[in-house]
């Protein structure tokens, strides 16, 4: 049984249809990457899974149980943690407070959360020295580290990562993806990326979304082999474009 099963998912924002009949699975232990242009429905897919967007029809099964239509507070308690687009680090709280709040889905005391947050800095040594700094003082790369650390504090079985590379310098993108390769050892990851090269480099499975539909899916090497897709979404065929966003 797949950890996450999405069946014929439709999502609308008012009159606008954001997702049409999207179906795919995420197996436990895998990294699955959703690719596509702006507005293709990648973020909407994640928002529907985490409960921020209500599906108009279709089903989302997590560990065999339907979670479609549940609220975000209930879904994160079941073990799905969503690191949304734009990091969304609380600007008026410190880095450590932000990370500690990531454990709000579990019953844990303040002291336990504090200890776990300190341990989290081992995975993200770059932000340890900003532990007491307020969120709004950080750079984009640091914010991304905080956002991912906060997402991991939920001890999720499935981590949803939305555009972790967006707006980051290439060297920071590399650092973020190094962390993803460490996370995948213990957690299943559903990754949304515009940076197709980076996104597929860590993936077991990739799907390409186009105007709310999945147009192609498969192993990363199969996606690379599809010339039309490679040209349209993967930044041209065979050109080394690592670290640059592909549109």
């Amino acid at each position: 049984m797949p950890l996450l099963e999405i069946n014929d998912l439709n999502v609308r924002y008012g009159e606008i249809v954001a997702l049409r009949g999207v179906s795919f699975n995420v197996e436990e232990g895998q990294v699955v990457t959703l690719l596509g242009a702006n507005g293709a429905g990648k973020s909407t897919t994640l928002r529907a899974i985490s409960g921020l967007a209500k599906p108009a029809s279709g089903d989302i099964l997590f560990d065999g149980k339907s979670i479609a239509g549940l609220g975000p507070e209930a879904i994160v308690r079941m073990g799905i943690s969503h690191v949304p687009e734009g990091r969304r680090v609380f600007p008026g709280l410190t880095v450590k407070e932000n990370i500690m709040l990531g454990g709000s889905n579990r019953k844990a005391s303040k002291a336990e959360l504090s200890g776990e947050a300190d341990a989290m800095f081992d995975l993200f040594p770059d932000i340890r020295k900003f532990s007491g700094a307020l969120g709004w003082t950080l750079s984009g790369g640091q914010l991304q580290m905080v956002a991912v650390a906060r997402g991991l504090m939920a001890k999720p079985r499935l981590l949803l990562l939305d555009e972790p590379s967006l707006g980051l310098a290439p060297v920071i993108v590399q650092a973020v993806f190094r962390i993803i390769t460490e996370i995948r050892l213990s957690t299943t990851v559903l990754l949304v990326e515009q940076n197709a090269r980076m996104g597929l480099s860590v993936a077991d499975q990739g799907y390409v979304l186009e105007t709310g539909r999945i147009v192609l899916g498969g192993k990363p090497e199969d996606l690379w082999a599809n010339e039309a897709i490679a040209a349209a979404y993967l930044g041209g065929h065979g050109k080394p474009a690592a670290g640059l966003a592909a549109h």
Partner: protein
Amino acid sequence: MDLVLQLLFTGIGIGAVYALVALGFVLIFRATNVVNFAQGEFSMVAAYLMVVCAVDLELPYWLSFIIALAGMAVIGVIFNLGVYYPLRHRTYLPVIIATIGASILMANGVLALYGPQPQVLPGWFDTPGIQLGPVYLDSQYLLIIVVTIALVIFNYWFFEHTMIGKKLQATSQDKEMASLLGISVSTMIMVTFIYSAVLGGLAGLLVAPILFVSIQMGSTIALKAFAATIIGGFGDVTGAIIGGLALGIIETFGAAYISVPYKDGFAFLVLVLFLVFRPQGIFGERVAEKA
């Protein structure tokens, strides 16, 4: 010099009341992005609850105080469920209008139940006050100042050193993100309304023995407290407290040295000066928090 110290004491005392109500304004604003125009009525309703318990029913003063504050907690719950919750997915405008409606309802409800005659509430202490050197410390003003200091310390501890305080801050900064982390946003907003209603009520209970207990007392306090939040920097907790104290001191000195009839005018003159020359208020620059 003696007069200056005396006025300073009185000004801080009355300013502390504005600060408590202003704090209620700011906390609800930060949690819901809405100015609660019924904040002053919380003070008025609490004062009437106190009159009913302590004067009419002749219950002990401390017990009446607790009953009135507990009553305000209940009103906070009802207010949240009746005024905010049904409109929470709308823009701020319907919610603000609902708070205005609730304020009219509370004022006229009390008027219907209790009549228009202003009531007198005795102070907590039998001793009217103590002479400390050149300054006469009125016991009720002293109580106001001590309670406000204790509350400011409690408020700081609550928001900075407890997880629920952090969750409240997170909710006020980004509700959607807070819900993604498993923070119950509706519970946090409920806590905010209860806390703000109790704060407003406490201000009413403390100031009631100084003023008459009347239907109008709520709107008078609320207008000053609202001015205090703007002077302090809207949405800033420290600013609300400093703004409240500053306003109390300014109007007390204005009344003593310039004109008693224009006492209420000084607060609003300062407000106008701030709106013209420093609209972001004293602590306004830190509003970088709302990214």
